[in-house]
């Protein structure tokens, strides 16, 4: 009877690895790990051998060769004599640009719609439901293509602005041109003395924050509430405008004007950038709105009842009581929406937007025939961008989450 519970008398035996529960799970894990590594090794070896058999050994030298193609939207200096690596970098920056713009649009719209969906007004909340359901249940590629098609077909071509009997005209006192090739807006031009205006403007932004914390302390001490919004608005505009006029208007505007085939001057936002940003932003906003709604509904009703019992207005209740608590629920799913948006931006080629998939994973891949290398780099780039986004957002999440004492 006692023999079954006796520990083994002599030392470690190999059979214990399988029959002894103390070691068994470890054995299984090690075997699984070895098998997994062998599987990965086999796949890599197979790929390398097959590529070698095709006469295309793995090499990354093509990144240094001249690209030979042009890119329309470039945030850094680039021409077709520069390398494939440089073209890829131009693409990465374009990807980041559309991702950042899209995330901002999706967040602003998403919060707005999510709050409105909880509105007591039946028409408003139903409208938002229709928006959310129609956007998130149609593939984003279709939205991208549709937005671009609407853009191209419904706005006038630049040549419609030309001649005495032009069929289209510029808006906002001839400063903005909306064509089917994109939006042309004025560009600020800096003359001497403009630095003073910029410095004052930056200082007034610092001032807004200083004022904010002073006002909060004052409110905590005396209980009085200042009209914060209007004062901040005044700090934002008044000093910079004063200096602007005192210095003799050192900042001018470069207006776009029709010259040759296209508008020249000003800032040119291409139709592909606008269409892609809009489509990605509107699509992701539907998901963000649902996250926001879930976050708000997760805050117990007693909180808002307590707030109104204290006499807070609905706006202040939302800003001071509900949203700070809701953010804790909203942030984690919001991270994955940002990641989704960034990854969805790889559909850019559908509208001819030259993101990194279009340059490195498109033209470069096609002209050099380095499929494996290009795709590996492309995956590494997206992985890096995604990891950076999620670590930044995780850091933000840490800062808003409930401090437990």
């Amino acid at each position, binding site marked *: 009877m006692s023999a079954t519970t006796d520990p083994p008398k002599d030392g470690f035996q190999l059979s214990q690895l399988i029959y002894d529960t103390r070691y068994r799970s470890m054995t299984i894990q090690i075997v699984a790990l070895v098998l997994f590594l*062998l599987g990965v090794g*086999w796949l890599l*070896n*197979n790929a390398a*051998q*097959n590529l070698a*058999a*095709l*006469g*295309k050994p793995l090499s990354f030298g093509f990144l240094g060769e001249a690209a*030979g*193609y*042009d*890119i*329309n939207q470039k945030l850094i200096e680039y021409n*077709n*004599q520069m390398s494939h690596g440089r073209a890829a970098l131009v693409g990465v920056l374009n990807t980041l640009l559309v991702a950042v713009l899209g995330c901002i649009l999706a967040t602003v719209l998403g919060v707005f719609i999510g709050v409105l969906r909880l509105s007591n007004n039946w028409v408003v909340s139903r409208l938002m439901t229709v928006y959310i359901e129609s956007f998130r249940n149609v593939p984003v590629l279709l939205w991208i293509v549709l937005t671009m*098609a609407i853009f*191209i*077909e419904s706005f*006038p*071509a*630049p*040549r*419609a602005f030309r001649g005495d009997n032009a069929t289209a005209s510029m808006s906002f006192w001839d400063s903005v041109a909306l064509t*089917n*090739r994109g939006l042309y807006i004025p560009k600020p031009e800096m003359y001497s003395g403009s630095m003073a205006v910029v410095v004052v403007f930056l200082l007034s932004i610092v001032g807004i924050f200083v004022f904010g914390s002073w006002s909060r302390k004052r409110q905590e001490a005396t209980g009085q509430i200042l009209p914060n919004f209007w004062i901040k608005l005044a700090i934002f505009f008044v000093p910079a405008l004063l200096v602007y006029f005192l210095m003799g208007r050192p900042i001018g505007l470069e207006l776009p004007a029709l*010259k*040759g*085939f*296209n508008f*020249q001057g000003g800032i040119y936002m291409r*139709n*592909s950038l606008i269409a892609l940003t809009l489509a990605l932003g509107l699509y992701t906003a539907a998901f963000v709105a649902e996250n926001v709604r879930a976050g708000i509904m997760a805050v117990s009703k007693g909180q808002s009842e307590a707030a109104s019992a204290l006499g807070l207005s609905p706006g202040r209740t939302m800003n001071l009581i509900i949203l700070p608590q809701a953010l804790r629920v909203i942030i984690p799913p919001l991270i994955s929406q940002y990641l989704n948006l960034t990854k969805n931006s790889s559909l850019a*080629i*559908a509208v*001819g937007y*030259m993101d990194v998939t*279009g340059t490195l994973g*498109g*033209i470069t*891949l*096609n*002209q*050099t*025939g380095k*499929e494996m290398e290009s795709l590996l780099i492309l995956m590494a780039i997206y992985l890096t961008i995604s990891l950076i986004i999620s670590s930044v957002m995780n850091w933000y999440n840490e800062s808003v989450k409930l401090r437990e004492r």
Partner: protein
Amino acid sequence: MKITTFFGAVAAATMTAGFASAGTLDDVKAKGFLQCGVSTGLTGFSAADANGNWDGFDVAVCRAVAAAVLGDPQAVKFTPTTGKTRFTALASGEIDILARNTTWTFSRDVDLKFTFVGVNYYDGQGFIAPKELGVSSAKDLDGATVCIQTGTTTELNLADFFRTNNISYEPVPIETNAEALQQYLAGACDTYTTDASGLAASRATFENPEDHALLPEIISKEPLGPLVRHGDDQWADIVRWSLNALIAAEELGVTSANVKESAMQAGNNPEINRLLGTEGNLGEQLGLSADFAKNAIAAGGNYGEIFAKNIGESTPIGLARGLNAQWTDGGLIYSPPFR
């Protein structure tokens, strides 16, 4: 010990994989059909009709090869490819032959590891622009917005052309011909550039073709032809000589109307006899039946007939033979002898 066996197995598996991809002819015979990569739709060259039947100048090459190998011009499965996906499709073995107005260039032949088996259309890159723009030469296009199919040689030629002439442009990269035409017709680009034959083919589909002009400059040489993977010379030979059979047939006066009759018995022209298999064993040398060329020609006619039917002057596309006339008529179309 076990690991050694494992790597041995891996090596063996890889080697067999290597061998398997070498016998395209056997693969095609085993499948019973030919897999042919074509464009996603370019009228006259390769386009599917309402019933899903593919037709066109490039399609005819695939049908001729299918007829030569399998005896049935309908035994072809067509894979529409874009300028971007075509080479990956061919390199990966998804298609056996690519006939998609693809330009024969050094780097595609050498670096991308493909074999161009010949040229079925001598083309050059041109521009199309609306007449109302008042552009008479491509050199007037300074600052213009240019629509272009991405992943093609035209993209590189365009960059070279504008650089040598020291003028600027705004490229709008587009995936397919249809999307490019949509943007061009809506005025989102001033001009569209691709192979001149493709421009002529596209213009034929416009509502008002006469409002659009092809600019006089041809900025590049674009010899278009079918291609196969490196490493299977027998298969490359089959495709090459199927194409040559069509070209030689025109030169020798063999047409779809008289090919059956001529192939019945040996005539008095030894070259026709060798071509149609009534003399010699050329088909056998290729690993095909003796009448492979007869089947290829019977599929859609000789080169001249295919040209006239799909893109010739009597069609809406209306391309003249020009460079693509037989060498005997002052063109570049020339088949090495069947001997």
